[in-house]
């Protein structure tokens, strides 16, 4: 995201600092990967839907082939003990990265008890109860609508 800002606002003057901030706000709010939403948003601002498509393809084409190549290699791989140990380390690291990111985001964004409660609820429903995600999204939005309206209406 910082890189997109650098390229579009600072280097190329495609849009202003304020327009960029608005785009980020909208893209974080809508479902989907934030960087990809951003690509679609900025692409379409400049060249309509063709620009959006170009930006999207530009962002995912190369990673797609790299990842697919790795997937093919993974299928052919002899799963010896050393390979398993390395993947064990990678998996453990990936879990740690997710935990660290969650802690960092939590510290920054969960500013009151209600928000902490919602995060804990989402966690328990998905990891503990293994509820369908549609149920979790509906539950969280419903609860916010009923109990959090007063606070949300204050700026």
């Amino acid at each position, binding site marked *: 995201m910082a890189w997109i800002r650098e390229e579009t606002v600072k280097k190329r003057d495609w849009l202003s600092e304020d327009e960029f901030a608005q785009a980020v706000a909208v893209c974080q709010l809508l479902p989907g990967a934030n960087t990809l939403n951003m690509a679609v948003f900025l692409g*379409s601002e400049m060249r309509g839907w063709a620009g959006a498509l170009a930006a999207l393809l530009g962002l995912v084409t190369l990673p797609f082939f790299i990842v697919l190549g790795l997937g093919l290699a993974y299928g052919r791989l002899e799963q010896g003990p050393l390979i398993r*140990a390395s993947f064990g380390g990678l998996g453990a690291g990936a879990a740690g990265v997710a935990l*660290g990111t969650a802690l960092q985001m939590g510290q920054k964004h969960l500013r009151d008890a209600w928000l902490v409660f*919602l995060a804990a609820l989402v966690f328990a429903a998905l990891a503990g109860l293994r509820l369908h*995600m549609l149920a979790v999204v509906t539950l969280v939005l419903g609860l916010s609508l009923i109990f959090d309206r007063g606070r949300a209406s204050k700026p």
Partner: protein
Amino acid sequence: MIWKVLLVFAALSLLALGGGSAIIPELQRQAVIEQHWLSNSQFVDFYALTQVTPGPSMMVVALVGYQAAGVAGALAAMLGMFGPSSLLVLNVRHTWNRLRNSRWRRMLERTTRPFAVGTMLASATLVASSTNQHAAQWLITLVAAGLVGSKRLGILPTMVLSGLAGWLSGVL
């Protein structure tokens, strides 16, 4: 099978509130437990792999699609994952900017953050509980969490170190 892949990912696409990584727990449930497209350990391996490859971290969807239905499945997964959310962005980007001060928008803004934190914690728990079998692995998880959580080290170097640590634990 390709239609099934497309459908599963299209639904996930619109549920990814608060960012792409939000779908990881649901993706694991659907692909491993419900559809049996791949084993749990394959899923965790793919997830870990896509954390060290360039590009959006959501590229794990391509590998899950590939495992389900080959190259066509990988393409269907990408289309399903990024199509609906992109169409939504295209259609509502201006409406949303005008709604800047609406109560609905503010409520949604407040809700997406805890949603992102909760889903991320669930991903961490699911991945750790599927892959961590030795004390050494739990140690790697905690150290990685500490490094990333305190912003001492970026995600990519942390992942590389974790892989090396795993390899070392295999050598010793």
